[in-house]
Structure formats: C-alpha cells, structure tokens
C-alpha cells in the first residue's frame, strides 16, 4: 500500500533512530509510524490485557445488577458496568490500530492465551463489595491509569484520557455507597469492614511485584509505555487511601501501617504474595466461570453476528445518509 520513495531513508537503523528521537522528545507514536516489533508486541499484549480486564471486570459487579438493593443503586451500577463495556471497546480499538483484530483477541482470552487482571477472580460476596471495588480497586486502577494518559502510543493515551474521566466517577460512586452504608445499620457497617478486609491487600497487589522483581518494567519505562515504577505507584495509592479510610471510619487490615513523619508517607506491612497466589489459584472456579461466560456470549450468539452479516450482504448499497 505504500509507494516507493526516493529521498527517504528506509533502512531500519534510520527508522529506529527516528523512533527513538520521537520517544526522547516525549512525542507520540501514531499508528502508521514505523515502530520496533517489540514495542508493537508489548503494546498489543498490554492493551489487550487491559481490554480483557475491563470486559471480565464487568462480571464481579454484574453479579449484583439484578439484586441491587435500591433502584437508584441499580441504575448507577448498570451505568458503571456499561461504562466498562465501553472502556473495553475503546481499548480494543486502540489495539486494532496496531494490526490486532478484536475477534482474534477475544478468542485468545477465551482460550486463555491472553490474561486479565487477577483481581477480577475474587468473588463479590456482599453488596459492600460493589462499593469497595469502586473505592479501592477502581482507585488503584486510576493510579495505574492516569500515567497511561501520557503513554507514548497515541491511540492508547487518547483512550486512557476518556477512561480515566469515567473511572473517577466510578470511584466516587463506590465511596458514596460506602459512606451511606457506614451511616446505616450495624449489619451494613459490618459488611463494609468485611469487604475492606478482603479487598485491601489484593488492591495493593494490583500494582504488581516490587521494582527489584519486575524484569519487564525497565524496557516499558524506556519506551514510554510505563511512566512510574510499581512501588512508586503503590506508595502513592496508600498515601491517598489511608485518609479516605479514616474519613470513612473503617480499619485497614494492616497492623504495621503507620505514618512516617520524616518522609510524609504511610508505611505499610509486607505484602504476602503467597497468600495472593493461594487465593488466586484457589479461585480456579471463578476464573473458569469468568471465561465460560465470555465463551457463551460468543458462541451462543454467533448466529446473531452471522445473521447481521448476511443481511448486510443482501442489502449492500442501500445508503443511509450522506455526511453533513
């Protein structure tokens, strides 16, 4: 599709140099630019995993859609879960600018060739989990995602700008639900504390392994795909969340949590990664169920997709309207 050119260097070294210069100048790489294969592959994997996480992430909260305890909460939760479908779409869009195909990425998710965030394999046991997911899980996601608005890859950065705007509302609705429950009945308050106990440590683990144990991070930082280290973001998240917990009146389940006057940071206890792995692997059924539902949505409705394609072929050429 590209015409040969006479006066432009096409050897890889020169292209690499141009790419490096763009990254160094903190400018954006756009879809039709030359890029190293490793950069493209890393981005496709990361954006696809992010998209899968949004789509799978609809399920833990979606489990409460039919049972939300007030009509107002039902509407809020439905809008939120719907937003997540939208986020998944924006992200698959960004991945498609890199030559990936959404149906193919979905197949890879269903065949477990690509992963999604483990956080969504935790079950949502009570309605307080809906609030805590908004406050802590979406809060951690925001910490991870705000820097991605400056990702070196233009379409990803642009998708993230819109997603971050919507996520901040998600976090606020979660926190507002928790505030309402904390001023409610003793049973409601107990539900909130129980949910915080279960979700606090997993939310810290969302930031990934410590920096000295994170081999992929360096290259991603150099490429401008990642902007801050795992530990940096985790600390920022803890510093934000502790005062919010105090305001809410819940206890974070960490006896070692204390304020360090010298640095101005909240210091937290050691993360028990074995516990995380145990819970995640112990939740094999959750993983299988999450994937089963994606597979069912694809396979049970394949006839719908085919029908629309067939109809379009029969009625091709019927114009809808011209641009104005």
């Amino acid at each position, binding site marked *: 599709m590209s015409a040969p050119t006479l006066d432009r260097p096409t050897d890889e070294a020169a292209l690499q140099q141009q790419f490096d210069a763009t990254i160094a100048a903190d400018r954006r790489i756009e879809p039709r630019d030359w890029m190293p294969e490793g950069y493209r592959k890393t981005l496709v994997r990361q954006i696809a995993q992010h998209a899968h996480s949004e789509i799978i992430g609809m399920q833990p909260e979606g489990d409460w*859609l*039919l049972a939300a305890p007030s*009509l107002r909460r039902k509407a809020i939760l*439905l*809008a939120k879960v719907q937003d997540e*479908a939208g986020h998944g779409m924006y992200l698959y869009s960004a991945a498609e600018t890199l030559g990936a195909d959404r149906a193919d990425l979905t197949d890879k998710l269903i065949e477990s060739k690509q992963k999604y965030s483990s956080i969504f394999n935790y079950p949502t046991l009570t309605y307080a989990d809906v609030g805590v997911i908004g406050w802590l899980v979406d809060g951690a996601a925001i910490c991870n995602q705000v820097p991605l608005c400056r990702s070196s890859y233009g379409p990803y*950065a642009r998708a993230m700008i819109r997603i971050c*705007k919507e996520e901040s509302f998600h976090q606020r609705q979660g926190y507002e639900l928790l505030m309402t429950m904390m001023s409610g009945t003793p049973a409601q308050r107990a539900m909130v504390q129980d949910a915080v106990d279960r979700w606090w440590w997993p939310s810290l683990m969302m930031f990934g392994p410590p920096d000295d144990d994170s081999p992929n991070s360096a290259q991603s930082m150099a490429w401008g795909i990642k902007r801050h280290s795992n530990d940096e973001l985790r600390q920022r998240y803890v510093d934000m969340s502790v005062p919010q917990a105090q305001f809410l009146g819940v206890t974070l389940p960490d006896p070692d949590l204390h304020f360090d006057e010298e640095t101005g940071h909240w210091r937290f206890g050691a993360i028990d990664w074995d516990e995380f792995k145990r819970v995640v692997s112990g939740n094999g059924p959750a993983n299988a169920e999450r994937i089963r539902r994606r597979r069912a949505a694809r396979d049970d409705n394949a006839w719908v997709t085919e029908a629309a394609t067939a109809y379009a072929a029969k009625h091709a050429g019927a114009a809808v309207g011209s641009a104005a």
Partner: protein
Amino acid sequence: MPHEETVYDALDHAHGGEGHWAFGTGFDEPLAGVDTTVPDGVDPADLGAYCLMLGDDALVLAQRLTQWITAAPELEEEVAIGNTALDLLGQARLLLARAGSVGVLGRSRERATDSIPDEDALAYFRDADEFCNTGLVEAENGDFGQTVVRLLVASTVRLAVFARLRESRDPVLAAIAAKGVNELAYHRDHAARWVLRLGDGTAESHRRAQDGVDAVWPLLADVLTATDVERRLVAAGVAVDPADVREEVRDVLTTVLERATLRVPGWPADTPPRGRAGKHGPELTALLETLQGLARQHPAATW
C-alpha cells in the same frame, strides 16, 4: 494535550458534566416545576394504580434486559441493551414514585421502614400478586431473537400509549410520557432493526426470529384489554384506553414483520386482564426473588 480532549469537553459541557455517565443516570429532577396536584374528579387510588401498571411494566422489562449484561452478542449490543434498560428503569422510578406520592403503596409499608423511599418500598416490598405488569414483560427472555421481538412488541405498545399520554390531565403523567416518548422511539427502532436483520438474515436466524414471534404473540392478549381502573381514568381524561392503540400497534408490527420476511400470526383473542389484575406466572416470582432478596434481608437499611 488539551486539543485531544476538546471533543469530550464539549460533550461534557453540553450536559452539565453528566456526559461521563450513560444516558439516564443524571439524577436531575425530570419533573422539576411540574404541578403534582391530583386533578379534580380523579380518584388518587385509581391514579396510583395506573402508575403502578405502567411502572411495573418498565421495571420488569428492565430487569429482563439486564439479564443480558455480560451475555449479549458483541460489545456494541451490550451497551445498547444497557441504555434501554437504564431508560426503562428511569421511567419505572418516576412512575412508582408518583404512585407513592398519591398514597398508593399497597402492603409495602407493612414491611419497609419509613426511611426507604416510596419507589423502593414499591419495587422491593410488594409480593408478586401486588405487581400489575402484563405477561408480555414477565416472560423469560428466550434467545436473542425472542428478546428483540418482545422488545419490539413491548416498545411499540408503550410508545403508542405514551404518545397519547402526553395529553393526560395529570401533569405528572404527561411529563413522564413526554420524556419517555423519545426513549421509547429509540427502543422500538433498535428492536425493529434487529428483527429485520434476524428475519432476513440466515436460515437459522429466520427460524429463530419466527419462533420468537410465535412465542411472544399470544402475550399480546393480556396487553390491550382495559381494566376498570383504566376505564374510569380514560373517562376522567387521565389514562389511555389500550383499545385505542390497537390499530397503530398492529400496523407497526405487521409492517416490520413483513419487511423482515416473517409470518404475522393471527391477532390473539382478547382475554380478561391477568397481569394487570395481579395474576402472574412462576417467572415473575423467580424474577422478584432475585430483585428483592437483598433489600428484604435489610428492611431497615438505606442504600
């Protein structure tokens, strides 16, 4: 990169910051400034009962559509179904709140504490025999074909009713109808687009769409027969006589089905009102168990 945000900023500003949210969740007051006095010569008990009929239809259909979330064909349809369910949920909330405000709360207040708003007392603390939705909306979804056929039929009927209800002597019902008409026109068009594509798509989709039509059609019998409440309110200029919309509904449905190459079943014979009279199948009981379970475990809680 401010230029990259321009288009979204414009969307946000145009809607007071609510552009972040899916349509239908901006909790502004759609009835702000509307006179809430019950019109002269109208029995508040009748008015409330009528609001429950229309409100329960919306609530139950919203719940049915919500069952598709995480199970819909393609993500685009997931979002579209979510929008439709949100619109119907919004209509249900306004109508149930209106019923409560004129004192029609059934037995719900025997179970719900005062801190629970009327709309939730009515949605969560009435039993199935107090619900007055029609059988059309409470039937199981079936496959996607049956779901869109049911949505086509339900939104065609409701749009025809709401279009006339804009002239209601009750200013609240008139305002709810005026808001709802745009939403329902969109639901009907969306459903019709799908019925066309399934009916005139593949052999399998044609068969499934026809099965959906055949399953949904008999449910029309329960929809177009007036109850005594409706008759009295029609005389008072408040309600719409379901018989008045029959022709329009039949025309629209026939047109869509014929274009979709589907067979139009015979119009079902009228039956005495069932759903409107609180007579329901086990499907509604099961639906309400899921909908109400948590709220009923905590009758003193606010959320």
